[in-house]
């Protein structure tokens, strides 16, 4: 039986798309195991889907050519709420935040709209030269 007081923390720096995505998914698997959740736990699956969207955006666009700063990734679970943060040195992305779900014929542009609808909170701030993303969901 799960405890309401369970807690979990994970931290990694990511500097490669394929390996970075592996780390994101592995971190969710570790959270799943640490909290005794089933493989088909729906809230955690929805969170993982949102994390995959923001994570792939950050790993694709958040490491501009010449930038040596890796993506900083943190995951924590406290009192039933999972929160991920991703910090990258890419260009600001304000103009994309309000993007709606595109029509069926479009092959791209769904990621942020999907993440927004899957999370309780999707935060973004430009802090100096970095982007800070915050993903929150009650499980």
């Amino acid at each position, binding site marked *: 039986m799960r405890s309401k007081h369970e807690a979990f923390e994970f931290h990694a720096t990511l500097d490669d*798309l*394929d390996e970075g995505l592996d780390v994101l*998914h592995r971190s969710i698997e570790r959270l799943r195991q640490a909290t005794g959740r089933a493989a*088909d736990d729906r809230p955690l699956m929805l969170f*993982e889907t949102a994390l995959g969207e923001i994570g*792939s955006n950050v*790993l*694709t666009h958040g490491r501009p050519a010449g930038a040596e700063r890796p993506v900083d990734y943190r995951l924590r679970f406290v009192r039933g709420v999972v929160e991920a943060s991703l910090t990258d040195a890419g260009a600001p992305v304000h103009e994309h935040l309000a993007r709606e779900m595109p029509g*069926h*014929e479009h092959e791209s542009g769904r990621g942020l709209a999907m993440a927004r609808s899957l999370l309780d909170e999707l935060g973004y701030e430009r802090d100096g030269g970095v982007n800070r993303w915050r993903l929150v969901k009650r499980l």
Partner: protein
Amino acid sequence: MSLDVQSRQADNGATVVAPTGRLDVAGAPALKDAIAEAVKNGPARIVIDMEGVSFVDSTGLGSVIAALKQIRSSQGELRLAAPNQQVRVVLELTTLDRVFPYFATVEEALAGL
């Protein structure tokens, strides 16, 4: 984890494309390549067997939309089979379940194709 894609010819002549792994921004090009090969080599009646796909993201979904466009442009047909819970949720969230008919099994998808 890269996406592995196997293709085979079904008894009715349709092509079954079976990706295994994560169909995400890293894996999508492999599916695109497999679809392009299937369209080039034979009848554009294709079932994508999603049973081995553990996770899909919007870029992976985009590769399926690209496949649909490519196949329909050659008067062909594309069906999805055996998507897991996560894939179904993403299809429903994006309302693409209205565009891609999906079937519980490959056999059901092949019937009448």
